């Protein structure tokens, strides 16, 4: 077993009159299998871009980032769908954005789908211990 420490910080000096400065962390026990940081050139067919295998009762912690470039390295502004296998959309990431969430309690995986062309995504998943 190992420990994974995710930390999220949200900061703004001008969203409100009172400064927003918020930080939360967690200490997660994780086990194999996991994928560290990997890159994928994501196409418009989600089923071809499965980044996390189907769960079998376990919980995965999933990280995804839209790098803002396509397979050729050119800047893109198209959105990246985060989906459960079967084309169920969880949400859409714009260029440069990221997400962190638990996935589990069912028998579905996670796939990515570009809204058009290709998008290079960074991703990682870890299995809850």
């Amino acid at each position, binding site marked *: 077993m*190992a*420990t*994974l*420490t*995710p*930390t*999220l*910080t*949200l*900061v*703004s*000096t*001008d*969203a*409100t009159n009172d400064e*927003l400065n*918020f930080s*939360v962390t*967690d*200490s*997660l026990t*994780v086990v194999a299998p*996991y994928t*560290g*940081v990997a890159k994928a050139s994501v196409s418009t067919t989600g089923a071809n871009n499965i980044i996390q295998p189907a769960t079998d009762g376990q*919980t*995965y912690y999933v*990280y995804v*980032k839209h790098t803002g470039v396509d397979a050729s390295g050119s800047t893109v*502004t198209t959105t990246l769908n*985060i989906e*459960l296998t079967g084309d*169920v*959309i*969880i*949400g*859409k*990431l*714009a*260029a*440069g*954005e*990221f*997400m*962190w*969430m*638990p*996935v*589990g*309690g*069912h028998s579905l995986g996670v796939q990515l789908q570009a809204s058009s062309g290709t998008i290079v995504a*960074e991703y*990682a998943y*870890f299995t*809850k211990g």
Partner: protein
Amino acid sequence: MATTTATLTLSSDMLSSPINISASTNLAKATITEGLELIEMGRGTITEADGSKTAEFGLPTALGADKAAKLFFVNNSTNPEHYIDIDLHDTNIGRLYAGDWMFIPFGMNDTASEFVIEAEPSGATCPYEFALFQEPQTLVTHS
């Protein structure tokens, strides 16, 4: 224009060499060029006896499919056996165990993106907190 910066770091000792991942982004409207301006925060408690509930912020709105929002949600339970099931409408996404949190893009533009929570297992009580960053909504005429 508001600028809110979200930064995520992941560190782990699972390998002989430490893992360190860091990502940072400004929370932007769908147009990307402007920041999200509307921030809604809150807290609540859900029990297993409550059954499946739509979260305070989870009702579909008139934001529209071409709008953006980001959602932070944490299960503040201290009982490691108590978790919150997260659903988008009828689709189960995952479980937040005690102290676990998530940060996701949130569509909130139709019924299919309704944010639904449920405390488990039997007898569970889960305090939670949330922060929703979204685009301004259209004001409505008074009744």
